[in-house]
């Protein structure tokens, strides 16, 4: 009996410790690599979802595969477990547009990459043999880099050994009272070999060549289904494809970084929006181009099980505005032009946690470091209650929908007056009642 009780006690103790493993379901999914306006984002359309969302006139990559799908309650997401099961189906995709004939899409080998340019958006897609070439080119660059790295490491080892030997020799000779000037000069003349730089041709290097159905469609609604090798429709493969486009493009948004909370930036996206601040710290702004999409369509394109508002349009950050300037107008209508500057984020000294953003000093205290932030510094304080900002392009021209207001909120000492104003109707009511009662009293 006692043993049974101990066993029961151990069981009770263990139960809460055992993790709750989510139930995995084998499902046919469409794995989607969709272009989201600035990047490629991966998602999947499982059995629970009947629609795939894609941006119009862009290359999107879709594959049909069997995998394990489970719900992860911590983040509230549906996820795939491809390590246990990841079986890609071989066949073709039948695409039907409403009122038109179906067409068959065959899988193609592809890769995509983003090359370095003035803007961040230089995505390129290569298919077929071109994809192989692009991948081989990148592999070649990587190989060259590793060879150079290997040579560098050898040279560095030789250099370090020579340095050590010379240093040892100098110490010994100095201890023996021998003149070491010649050896010291030789030591000074030695130069450390330079480390090779990794290839910087790409911002995002080519992905390994894979095979997928490439969907580049104009705006509209389509239906797809997967046809396997036996010309049979794969059960559960029928999906609706909503292809949408941006409503407006090249709007200007601002990433706003408060001086005391640099890790918590906010975004000002609506062109008529006003930025209210308490005026305790300066603001650091980073302007970006933005496009406007339907909120639901965009969210579901990035992540198929996401939620969004179908009645609203949302601005989406696309890329930074290069070479821009900010024209700043204060209370006294004098304007000044701000330029982008580098800044460094320093942790505040003492026991209190916090940061402060200081100008980057590459020659002084920040030597051999990179700036933490490149932004426009907008000085804000309680004396400047209204600041109007306007973004100019590199030619000094005003960029449309880039105007914003920064307003410093200061609680007025006249607040009680505002409260009394609310009671004005009640006062009016009292006056009317008094007049009425006097008029009709005997």
């Amino acid at each position, binding site marked *: 009996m006692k043993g049974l009780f101990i066993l029961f006690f151990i069981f009770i103790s263990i139960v809460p410790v055992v993790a709750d493993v989510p139930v995995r379901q084998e499902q046919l999914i469409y794995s989607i690599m969709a272009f989201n306006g600035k990047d490629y984002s991966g998602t999947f359309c499982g059995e629970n979802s009947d629609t795939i969302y894609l941006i119009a006139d862009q290359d999107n990559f879709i594959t049909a595969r069997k995998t394990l799908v489970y719900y992860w309650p911590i983040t509230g997401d549906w996820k795939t477990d491809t390590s246990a099961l990841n079986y890609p189906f071989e066949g073709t995709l039948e695409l039907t547009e409403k009122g038109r004939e179906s067409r068959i899409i065959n899988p193609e080998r592809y890769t995509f990459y983003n090359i370095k340019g003035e803007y961040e958006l230089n995505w390129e897609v290569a298919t077929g043999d071109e994809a192989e070439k692009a991948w081989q080119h990148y592999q070649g660059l990587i190989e060259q880099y590793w060879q150079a790295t290997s040579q560098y490491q050898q040279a560095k080892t030789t250099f370090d050994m020579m340095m050590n030997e010379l240093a040892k020799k100098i110490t010994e000779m100095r201890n023996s009272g021998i003149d070491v000037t010649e050896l010291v000069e030789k030591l000074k003349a030695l130069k450390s070999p330079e480390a090779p730089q990794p290839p910087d041709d790409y911002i995002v290097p080519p992905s390994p060549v894979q095979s997928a159905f490439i969907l580049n469609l104009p705006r509209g609604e389509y239906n797809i289904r997967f046809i396997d090798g036996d010309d049979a429709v794969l059960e559960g493969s029928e999906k609706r494809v909503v292809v949408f486009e941006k409503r407006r493009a090249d709007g200007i948004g601002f990433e*706003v970084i408060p001086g005391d909370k640099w890790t918590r930036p906010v975004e000002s996206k609506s062109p008529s929006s006003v930025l209210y601040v308490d005026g305790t710290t300066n603001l650091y702004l980073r302007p970006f181009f933005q496009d406007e999409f339907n909120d639901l369509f965009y969210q579901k394109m990035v992540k198929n099980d996401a939620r969004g508002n179908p009645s609203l349009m949302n601005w989406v950050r696309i890329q930074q505005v290069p070479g821009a300037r900010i024209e700043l107008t204060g209370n006294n209508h004098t304007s000044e032009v701000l330029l982008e500057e580098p800044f460094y984020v320093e942790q505040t000294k003492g026991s209190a946690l916090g940061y402060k953003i200081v100008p980057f000093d590459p020659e002084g205290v920040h030597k051999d470091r990179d700036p933490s932030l490149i932004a426009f510094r907008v000085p804000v304080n309680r004396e400047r209650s209204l600041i109007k900002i306007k973004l100019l392009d590199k030619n000094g021209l005003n960029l449309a929908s880039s105007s914003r207001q920064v307003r410093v909120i200061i609680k007025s000492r006249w607040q009680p007056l505002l409260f009394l104003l609310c009671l004005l109707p009640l006062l009016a009511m009292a006056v009317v009642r008094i007049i009425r009662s006097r008029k009709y009293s005997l």
Partner: protein
Amino acid sequence: MNFRLRAASVIAKRRIFESCLSPGFYIAQAVGLLLSYFLISGFVSSIDSSGFNYMLHPLYELIGRSLAGAFGATFLEKLFAEGPFQFVFYVSFVPVFLYLSFSTVFHFGLEKKVGAIELLAYGPVDGTSYFLAFYIKDVALTVLYQLLLVLFLSAAALLNNLFLGPAFLYVLVVIFFMALMLYTLSILASVLTDGGASAMALYIGIILLFLIVMMGSFTIASGYVRSFSSVLSWVINWVSPFFYWGLALSSVEAGNTLNYFLILLVMAALSGLFLFLSHLVIKIKGVRP
């Protein structure tokens, strides 16, 4: 026709005078202004170095969480993009609007039931001029309250260095037109039924139906309300004031001002249609209880 208008204007003046004597209108205004005051104070307290953060004030935390949960973060972001005044205006408008429309529905139904309208109909007044008088009263008092609200919000903006925002003016006008439509619906509900209670029930039912459909379209997809409302919405939206309100404001947001004014015209035309329907109903049914 002139007779009818004259009768309507005389009764409307009397009604406005009565409203000014009764405490209800003043209390509704005070409630509306107090709501504005607390919402603006809350907004001011929700500002820190990085801007508006609804988590900083308990009232706004509740509002922010509820709105973001139901309609999504984008909705919340857009609602407060220019400041608090759009939201404040909606909230502050509700008490006076409800007071005016409910009192119209209730009084019309009651007066019809006790035979007061029938009695007047033997004189120079008919049912149409009687309900037109109610309508004129509602419109006049709404304009008065909107003016008061604009003055109050402007004072609040000035004191706190806030900005009413360009969208505020559009909201102000579209809410007025939306109220016009809802007042005509209150009259339609009154003439369709025989008593105050049944008229009130019908009117509340109509408002709730329109609200559910509107909220469904704004609710983030996959919510229960959305799937329920999507079935109804395709028919109901074309007569729903809330639908036109949403449509007008999205036109403004997209920079299509012409569309905004066209929608206002449609709202005015629908108000006229509801009034005409009320006229037909009262003509057929008569004013007897």
